[in-house]
């Protein structure tokens, strides 16, 4: 009897790493399905207030590898020329008036609204999170993600992934206290050409911002070769030159 219990325990211990491995592999595939290794894109960010009023921002972004992204605001006029850079968990903001990059933190928001800096400067989920557990529910997988370090904006993330396309459908973001911070909804899968097929819209709402909603619309997502030097402080004032 003892041998059977021991055998069952060993089996249980073996099963957990297998799930973890599958979950992390699946997470990497989700990342690659969302965007190529090195690419450019345009995004329109819309903040919608409870009274229905809107604020819109258009930005051009380039991303390389798992953890480098640079963006520049193209409109409105009050924001034009502002650029942001993220390398891993390091983030900077360049304001033309100020004339030099300043460090910002992931919980701040350069645009206001529900999206914070870590949402707007999204790097690969697999660069920030480990998958603890995978649940299969009908035609979907639910990935339970845990932040690799304390410097990640959300301590835990619950990600619903379409079983066929391996694209995210919904993401819930939690603080270390277990409180739900926000929910992201991935909508309107679109073929951008060059093999890039991904949701063209991300919507978010938050119990912390009742009645508010923010939306990101993606356009012209395409592969682009980018040197590493683009993702440096000295280049922040010149990101728009890449367009």
């Amino acid at each position, binding site marked *: 009897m003892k041998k059977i219990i021991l055998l069952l325990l060993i089996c249980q211990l073996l099963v957990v790493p297998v799930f973890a491995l599958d979950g992390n592999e699946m997470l990497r595939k989700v990342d690659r399905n969302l965007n190529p290794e090195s690419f450019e894109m345009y995004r329109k960010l819309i903040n919608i*207030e409870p009274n*229905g009023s809107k604020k819109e921002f258009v930005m051009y972004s380039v991303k390389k590898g798992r953890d480098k992204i640079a963006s520049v605001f193209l*409109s409105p006029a*009050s924001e034009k020329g502002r650029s942001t850079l993220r390398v891993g968990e390091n983030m900077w903001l360049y304001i033309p008036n100020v004339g030099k990059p300043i*460090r910002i933190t992931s919980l701040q928001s350069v645009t206001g609204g529900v999206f914070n800096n870590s949402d707007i400067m999204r790097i690969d989920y697999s660069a920030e999170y480990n998958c603890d557990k995978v649940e299969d529910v009908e035609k979907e997988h639910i990935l339970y993600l845990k932040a690799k370090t304390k410097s990640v904006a959300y301590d835990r993330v619950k990600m619903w992934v379409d079983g066929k396309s391996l694209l995210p459908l919904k993401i819930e973001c939690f603080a270390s206290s277990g409180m739900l911070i926000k929910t992201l909804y991935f909508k309107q899968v679109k073929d951008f050409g060059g093999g890039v097929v991904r949701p063209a819209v991300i919507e978010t709402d938050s119990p912390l911002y009742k009645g508010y909603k923010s939306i990101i619309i993606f356009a012209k997502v395409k592969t682009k070769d980018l040197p590493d030097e683009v993702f440096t*402080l000295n280049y922040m004032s010149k990101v728009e030159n890449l*367009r």
Partner: protein
Amino acid sequence: MFFTHLSQSCKCNLKKYTFFLLCFFLIFPAISMCGYAGAEDKPSDAIDLEFEIPEVEKKPYEFRAELKVLETVKGLDEDSLIFRQKYPDGLDDKTLYQTDLDLKVEGSYQAKIAKLYARLKENLSYNDEEAWENYLRTEEVYVSLQPSPSISLDAGKKVLKWGKGYAWNPAAFFSRPKDLDDPDATMEGYYVVSGDLIKSMDSPVKTIALTPVILPISKNINHEWATKKEIVWGGKIYFFTLDTDLDLMFLLGKEVNDCFGFSFSKNISVNFEIHGETAIVLDYVKHITDKQGNLTEKKYDAKDFLFGIRYLTARDTTYILEYYRNGQGYTEDEMKDYFSLIQAGYDDYISSQNMGDLIASRGYGSQSYNKQTVMRDYLYLKVSQKEPFEILYLTPALTCIYNINDKSASIAPQMTYTPITNLELDFKATFLFGKDYTEYGEKINDYKILASVKYYF
């Protein structure tokens, strides 16, 4: 005394003052209502998620402008020494009004690897003392060549802002001093030739960037720097390693003092950043006056330090706190000697109409003593709260500058409101506190109120 003076000033100018404040505060709700009226009041689900984004088409030229209307009210402190230095006969009206109209225009044109950029600022102002004034300033105009993302070369009038401090940048060797009242304001550059060489690596040091600078001095350009022709050399080396920004900078000249500096910044957590800066100015010459107005020179290596933090709370309150040690600054005794000189000059003028000492003190004041951050140790604290009490687009802030040496201070509550895209309303009141013979206690005004409307297009 301050509040008594404030109430007296207000009584004297009650009509103008009330009218001014009424005008400004009426603008807030009026524009706010326009913003809501102009908003598309429909559920978010019905919003057209169009994918064609018109702004993405790139043009070789770009143009941007901002128009600002600024009203300033200054409550003068007729008992302060700087007031007596400037107005020994006093003034009838203890409140000064000034209206400014600022137009800032910037544009660029790109042709292949070359880009031409220019930013001009036009200011038209009207005040009680000098009536209409007008100036046009070229803040920046330069050509930039960028053959590849890792190499660039710029030539022309350009702002080079170095260092990591928010309120002060002692290691910004090629910049003009920041305006402490508005550290984020654009500045005027110097004529330089500078470049960037960037190398990214897959190693513990992830990035190295070299920024060499040449600044020529002649009677036509950069003449503020020295009296004789010379070439000033400088540079900055940036390292990004261990998730930390590190900068080493230097400046070498003949008549211009050699300077060496270092700065760093790092994110400690998702909401906490630290930064620091240090600089040494070799053989710095400080001009010091005694109580009689005799000027002496003191030569020494001036050492500056700055350490600061930026902290964001869960309630969206941002704290910026900085300590600054100004190695070029005056000690408390040196400042007291200067104030004693003004007092003696004023007494002399009142008793015998002799302006000698007052004129001498005015000269010393405009050269150094009356400038911002004139003493040695300061604290800067700015607390800002994003959209408190669910009031959209409103950011109140409180800024405090504390002179540690003489325990005088400036406290400035501020409200910034952006109800409509591209429109910004700003209201700021600055109150100065300090005893006699202290920096903020002897400033020309007791308080200053600024109200501005800025539009970007």
